[in-house]
């Protein structure tokens, strides 16, 4: 249990449009941890990044008192264990196990499947949209009777699932496919509204206009048709 002191140095190597980077910023901000942010150009990675994350060479990387940690879910748990204010994970081992399960589900299932929507057309795209919706249904059911996945307040799964709220759902606008229609996913839509009512979330997600511009530009690069 580290005590907050003047000499604590927290640095985050990240990227403004990355959901994996932003989730770290949300966690640090929730806990009132001051940090230095270093914007990485992922098309031209810094030698610092390559040195601090030689295995994956990816952001985010958190550096705390000179020691680097990579992999966003690992970083989130580290943050929760190091700075104990405003806990992100539940205390109860079973609830904690469920939170970890859903977080991995978002990253390994929803993210991987949803990514495939981009760049596909016609029947192929319909199939991927269907698959993504089937996965999202699990999250939809989890939210019934809750303001957030974490219950009454933001937790681990909410932070991780911002990927759905502010990346997947923002991409819809651009590719012209409503992957998450409100009539099929009323709970998810309600949850997004709850997220937007939270000051930390509002502060830490990429500004919408710039973000949409960025997504559009990336799609153009990949020669994807925009709506």
């Amino acid at each position, binding site marked *: 249990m*580290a005590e907050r002191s003047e000499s604590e140095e927290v640095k985050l190597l990240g990227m403004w449009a990355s959901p994996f980077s932003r989730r770290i910023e949300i966690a640090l901000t929730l806990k009132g941890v001051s940090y230095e942010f270093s914007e990485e150009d992922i098309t031209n990675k810094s030698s610092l990044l390559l040195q601090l994350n030689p*295995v*994956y060479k990816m952001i985010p990387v958190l550096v*705390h008192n000179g*020691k680097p*940690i*990579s*992999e966003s*879910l*690992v*970083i989130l*748990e*580290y943050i929760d*264990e*190091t700075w104990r204010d405003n806990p992100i994970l539940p205390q109860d*081992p*079973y609830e*904690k*196990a469920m939170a*970890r*399960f859903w977080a*991995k*589900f978002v990253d390994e299932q929803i993210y991987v499947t949803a990514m495939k929507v981009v760049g596909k057309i016609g029947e192929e795209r319909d199939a991927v949209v269907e698959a993504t919706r089937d996965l999202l249904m*699990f999250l939809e059911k989890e939210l019934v009777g809750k303001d957030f996945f974490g219950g009454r307040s933001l937790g681990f799964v909410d932070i991780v699932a911002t990927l759905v709220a502010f990346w997947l759902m923002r991409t819809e606008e651009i590719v012209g496919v409503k992957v998450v229609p409100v009539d099929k996913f009323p709970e998810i839509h309600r949850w997004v509204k709850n997220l937007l009512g939270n000051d930390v979330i509002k502060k830490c997600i990429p500004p919408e206009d710039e973000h949409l511009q960025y997504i559009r530009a990336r799609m153009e690069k990949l020669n994807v048709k925009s709506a």
Partner: protein
Amino acid sequence: MGEEEEVKLLGTWYSPVVLRAKIALRLKSVDYDYVEEDLFGSKSELLLKSNPVYKKVPVLIHNSKPVCESLNIVEYIDETWNSSEPSILPSHPHDRALARFWSAFVDDKWFQALMAAVVTKSEDAKAKGMEEVEEGLLQLEDAFIALSKGKSFFGGETIGLMDICLGSFLVFFKAREKLKKEKILDELKTPSLYRWANRFLSDEMVKNVVPEIDRVAKFIVELEDRAQSVALSS
């Protein structure tokens, strides 16, 4: 914990990831009911109900509440039976982060590369795949040296998360070595890992829990025959 502790593990005798749960339960001296699932036949109602998302083993059911995903289960066991030594996760947050990082590396990157290299029919893809596997092993060798800090296991004096994570595959490696004369762990290339592997497999907490190498070798042959006949009939 309460007087009425009901612990059930759904698994298969051959699965390395199920083995992780078994080792963790053994480490903590937890009594449990084991249910062997027939994944080639039909999955039990209990399995489908307990793991509706993935329908896979292992599933740990503790007082009727299911926990899924092997590394999740190991951490749950560690946190729930926390008065029993040893601790599976280290105590310092940074060491815990390293244990989790490397476990995720094994599962998400390294093992995927190994599986791809093993199943591919293309000689080129196999060669390339094995290169990635070997590179990963060198990284794991360094990780062992860093995490063990001169002691016997990734977890230090006692078996920890990374030991369980990577160690769960060792019997399969040995079985393949026997069958195909293909070494996964090479004494010359990764000497620390090689020695660790032998220590792990002969440990009191592990040796009576792992399946027999010969039985696994037979199973691998059966799996390959099955795959062959499916390929021929399609």
